[in-house]
């Protein structure tokens, strides 16, 4: 075969190579998504019953107090989670960049990224022990004379959401830290030098030069963090299963319980469609806001 033949565009060959991937994508991603969309218009238990109900599932959702409670919980989660997950790694990355010794920077970077290797479930279970009635947090409070503040952190509706959000404290490590680090390293050294020559101190440098230059990273991390909150499921299910008294129930968990505990697959699908729409709208909004700022 000649070189010119190799370079020639061969649509059928390309299609042939793409076909397996597209087929897998279609069967395992698109088809389930479409069937879930269709299921939202049925009353179905996933076993035998399947009855067309039109938009009834969506109407029921609109008047379901548990759904609205889960939305309120979600907003509470978002208000607490997004700032700490956005700002914590930013501060961590700033501290790393400020280290003068490259060797120290290397070790601290490794140390801060290392927790990513620990499976999430292990972290959750460790924190569950920390929050126990006789766990280290309560023992510490007792030891410092604040024993009256000791409580079942995950068993109290007032503290359960902050307690779940606090998992991962001090939020400085992980993948988000790497994104910020990349952002810091991409700031031209000449810009920093110019600012310093103009008399900018460390705080001014950070607020007026580095922070504006990291706007894209901050936007991406805020969006990822928000989407993470929307899909938050595993840690809540392991720690509280939405309790106590639904104080930590989120729409994603409610979707799971509706579908697999209550046997209402149609209703769960409607909830999934609403969640998808909310995710899509939020993504567009955040991107739009980012563009406007730019």
């Amino acid at each position: 075969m000649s070189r010119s033949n190799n370079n020639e565009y061969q649509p059928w060959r390309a299609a042939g190579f793409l076909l397996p991937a597209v087929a897998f994508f279609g069967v395992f991603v698109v088809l389930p998504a479409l069937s879930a969309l269709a299921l939202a218009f049925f009353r179905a238990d996933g076993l035998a019953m399947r009855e067309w109900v039109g938009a009834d599932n969506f109407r029921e959702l609109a008047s379901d107090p548990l759904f609205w409670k889960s939305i309120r919980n979600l907003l509470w989660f978002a208000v607490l989670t997004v700032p700490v997950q956005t700002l914590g790694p930013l501060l961590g990355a700033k501290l790393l960049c400020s280290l003068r010794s490259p060797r120290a920077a290397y070790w601290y970077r490794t140390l801060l990224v290392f927790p990513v290797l620990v499976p999430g479930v292990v972290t959750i279970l460790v924190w569950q022990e920390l929050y126990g009635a006789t766990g280290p947090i309560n023992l510490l409070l007792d030891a410092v004379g604040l024993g009256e503040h000791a409580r079942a952190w995950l068993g109290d509706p007032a503290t359960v959401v902050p307690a779940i959000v606090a998992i991962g404290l001090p939020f400085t490590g992980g993948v988000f830290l790497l994104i910020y680090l990349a952002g810091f390293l991409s700031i031209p050294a000449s810009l920093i030098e110019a600012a310093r020559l103009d008399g900018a101190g460390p705080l001014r440098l950070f607020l007026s030069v580095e922070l504006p230059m990291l706007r894209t990273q901050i936007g991406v991390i805020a969006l990822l963090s928000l989407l993470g909150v929307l899909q938050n499921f595993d840690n809540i299910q392991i720690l509280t299963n939405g309790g106590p008294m639904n104080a930590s129930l989120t729409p994603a968990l409610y979707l799971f319980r509706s579908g697999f505990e209550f046997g209402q697959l149609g209703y769960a699908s409607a909830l999934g469609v609403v969640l998808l729409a909310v995710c899509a709208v939020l993504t567009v909004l955040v991107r739009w806001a980012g563009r406007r700022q730019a």
Partner: protein
Amino acid sequence: MRDRKTDAKIGPRLSLGFRAAQTSNDGLTDLPQLRENFPYADLGQIMTFCSSTASKRRRWRLGGLILLWLAGAQAWAAEPLRLVSIHEDLLPGMRAVAREFTERTGWEVEIQAVPYSAHELWIRTQMLSRKGPDVMLVESTDLPWRYGHSGLLVQWDEPLANSNPFDEANRDRPWRDSFYDELVQQARDVAGAIWCVPYTQYGVGFFYNEEVYDELGLAPPETWEGLIANFRAVRASGRAALVTAVKPNDHQTLWMADMLLELLLRPAAEQVNLLTRPGWRFDPLDPACARGEVITLEERLVAFDRGLIDPARAPAFRETARLMRTLAQEFRPDFLSLDGEEVPRVFARGQAVHFLNGTWYLRPLTAMQRGIEAIAPERVFPWAVFPFPELSAETTSLPRLGGINQNSGLRACFIASKQDSSPERQRAAIDLVRFLTAPRVAETSFGRTAVHDLPAMREVPPKPGAEPLVPKVRYAFLVLAQFRGYDARSEGEFWTLWQSLLGGMIDEDQFVQRLSASHRAALFRLSQEKASQMDRAFLARHLPKGFAP
């Protein structure tokens, strides 16, 4: 009887030779007869059938098709019966008796375990793909009800009403009479249908730390007041009195409430059980009077409408809530965050003096303490069990008929997948359950396990270690109302309300009002779903205005 699904499958394929086959009368030569023998028709029978058709070409085409069909069917039919259990501990005993079943029926049995933690999802996927095992040993009644209502399980009412052919000593006795009556009652769904066959029951009691009891000079209580007094004495000594969890995956508090509610609702039994034989009387001291009695959905709708089982109007619900709320003050404070699995560990570590649980913890608790002994022998303590105490006139002003029904919990039960396409296999699956629950077989089977759960069959004795949890007194048992709700949704709502009540967020009045709304909605949903199966004449007579959501 013809099988409609089989008809549908082979009908179009065999249309070429169907008429000719029906006209023949040479041995097994007509299609219905062949079908009747499916999947046992042998090659000779098939060839006879084929040779009876008119045209040679048609004959071979038809024969080929049937051979293909039967080859597949026979290969499938030759597969052993599949028995799956979520209680692995019970399997050695079942394996020991499976050989006898094979010898008696010719059916091989393949026995396997499914991890308890994953069983619900596993069963769901099997059912969704219509590949459910022939027989499954599962826990509690929710799962059988769910799949039974979806038409995927064998309904046991009829087999249970007939004798068990494997119970040679009791050939004239209905099979259901070999079980404890209350377990058969618990196996009934909201409409009175039975989707599972009892196999084991849990014996529930308060496990307690004997060392602390000796130190504080306490004795196992016999009354509710005694129990509360003991708990308060323990709490005053700076210890946690009772460790428990209040989550959908841990029913300890619900068991207590169920026992209380069953006792307190008993006076309404005759008013609720309207669809019964003439002259039936409820005698609380005669357990046999509840035998064969069914509380149907229609009766529940009427009883709810009349306020007999409506939590907002029936005082028994409010009283149960009040008593449990009093008890909740003695719980270890983290009961809303603890997981069920942690409860016995907390007790074994000596961090609480009591926990309420069942026979299945006799062995793990001993094992846990052995583990602790290896590290810190001084932390191991002697423990014992006392039954749930009786209510006295001091405890409640509500009328009581008889006493607390101890050990009334159905635990492991058999379900069988419905197999319309293979009646023979279906019969064999039912036979397997009959065989495993026949007293002689079950005794052998239980004898080879280390399980301390009590057998559900009357004639099978419990293990010696489980004796403290065996009921001493039994009263007539009818499940008039379900405290936790009537479907999955209302059960979910129940747990929120239950946590709110025991956590002190709402009082008894708020609890019963909200529980009433949840129960009413659930009963309404069920009445809509089962409208076609309900006794309309009964409802028209007793519920002329219908049941409002």
